[in-house]
């Protein structure tokens, strides 16, 4: 089961869960992912120890996709 989560003031919120053989769940996850992008979030996936990548489309085979906000110099 793959998960799309957003880091927010609750710690994190699970926005969608899907498996690749469930088209309805995939569709809902893709819509949720795009809605977060529209809100200014970036999609991130871990790609091995010490590495992460930004994704612009929901990677359906990823176990975990995390939405993060932009960072800036303080």
């Amino acid at each position: 089961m793959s998960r799309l989560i957003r880091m927010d003031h609750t710690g994190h919120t699970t926005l969608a869960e899907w498996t690749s053989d469930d088209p309805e769940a995939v569709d809902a996850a893709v819509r949720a992912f795009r809605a977060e992008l529209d809100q200014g979030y970036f999609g991130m996936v871990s790609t091995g120890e010490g590495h992460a990548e930004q994704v612009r489309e929901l990677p359906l085979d990823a176990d975990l996709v995390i939405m993060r906000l932009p960072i800036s110099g303080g």
Partner: protein
Amino acid sequence: MACEAESLPELAGVHWRPLVDERRLSRTAALWTATTTAHVVPFLGAAAVMVAVQPLAFPVSLASLAHAWVIPELYAHRGANVVRPKPPRAGAQAERVSVGLLGDLIGHEARDLHARTGLVLERGALGAWLIGPAGALLVRPGGRRVHCYCVRVNDPELPSGDRIAHLLLALRTDERGFATVANLAFSGARWRVRRRLDRRVRPALDAAAEAARALDRRASA
């Protein structure tokens, strides 16, 4: 997987800054050393000249020596402040949940260090990083020099674990971009920063220095 390797999107907001690399970090370090020397040497010289010309001016020369000592300490204090622990603004439950997610992103060793010090150790190509909720320390290979960066996610209501996770994911995406987006608060000797750190946080800097020494050994092997 629909992934594409790319630089940090936040770089667009600081497009005028040259991308940080090894050479630029070394140049920054040299500039900070030169600036510190330029601040300290005149006060040391003035103290020596005053005592040589008029030994009764000894108290004034002491004031000059104090200036020579205080100025670098103030700079180091500013650097240490980027990882100074602050009271959490989110609720206890949110803090727990955020730390749980952060724990999923890091290894056992880093998780243990975070539980003890509040900072996450991450090894990179530029050195060993210590990530806090509102800043990061970069211990350069060899472990003797530290760059202190102010960098944060723009939402003060986020729990501390999430704030660290934001910075960690950005760092893992593009280390050089991360160092470019962040604002440099101080660059100097590790011992100088360590003295100004909260006692609870010091073991994290020691661990980062050890990791940075290992990076240096690996590079020269």
